[in-house]
């Protein structure tokens, strides 16, 4: 049963895994950023700069998987 299942999965599983990690990473950054702004609403400007930076770095991994493999 395993072999037909493996045969069904066609070669983009590395993109799927990279997308999974990347999306979870971005979500974690967003979660913590919202929490920080909730605790200290005056720090919105500084928090959003750090949050955008962190999200961009986390999101870039999926592009390596899409374009740099094979």
């Amino acid at each position, binding site marked *: 049963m395993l072999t037909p299942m493996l045969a069904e999965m066609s070669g983009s599983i590395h993109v799927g895994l990279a997308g999974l990690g990347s999306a979870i990473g971005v979500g974690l950054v967003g979660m913590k950023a919202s929490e920080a702004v909730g605790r200290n609403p005056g720090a919105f400007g500084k928090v959003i700069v750090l949050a955008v930076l962190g999200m961009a770095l986390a*999101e870039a991994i999926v*592009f390596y998987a899409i374009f740099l493999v094979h």
Partner: protein
Amino acid sequence: MQSLRLIIASVFLICAPLALLNAAAGESTPAAAKPVVVAASGAAPAAPVEQGIPQSAQSLGRNGGFVTNSMLVTWVVALGVIVFARFATRKIQEVPSGAQNFWEWLVEGLYGFLESIIGPGLVKKTFWFFATIFIFILATNWFGLIPGAGTIGWGHQGEHGFEVTRPLLRAGNADLNMTFAMAMIFFACWTVWALQFSGVKGSFLHIFGPKGDSTGVIKYLMIVVFFAVGFLEVLSIAFRPISLSFRLYGNIFAGENLLEAMSNMVQHPAWARVVFGALLPVPFYFMELLVGFIQAVVFMLLTAVFTALICTHEEEAGESHH
């Protein structure tokens, strides 16, 4: 300072044709027309696998040449931005209004923003680069969303009317050559600024030298540890141009591909193809506006942060301007 800019500009002008020749050889992108499977095959059981837009930009000449449609867009955008800036500042007034007001707001806003991130001394020296990169990337990203970019061009008669396979205008940053060129220019500027700030010995010590105070045996152990860490740092620094270029390219290319897929999603009733082909991409256009803006901000922020990281004096590291 002027000579530095002249050197950088001439290096760019000399390297640009070389990069374009690479584009002709097609070696810097993985595949010329890798088919991107789009989830539109659920629309009808016998629908073929849809082809998204090709990964590399197509050349404008009929027999192939090194000028591509993305290149044309970057020239158009650069010319547009320069002409607009010159037009706005031809008679500078004490109290600005109209276009001059817009440019003053943009430049002052960017200057204040960067000053809070990299500090006042460094921003005086490097603002020209970060502001240019932000304005240019933003303009190029948004230009690709104008109706006509990607849809007017050469093609062939398909089953549903004329299909454009070689558009005249294609989003400028949906071409890896462009983003890689910008990342490499940043890398050259970064090297020059690092050397200007601390010299060769200072930069070497910044990367490989021990940080913090430790005495006795621990001090010698720390020297070894920091030396090993320096190699990891060099690896991370060498990877930065690649990550910068792929981030921008991936976001913009994925956006263009998504818009194309959404336009082509409904195929079969002819009236539905026209109606939904126009309606479906609309929310994604808004998303692409946002993504274009965010990617310009991110590119500028990341390059600014990388510059600030290498241009800090060790004893002032505790009082950074965040």
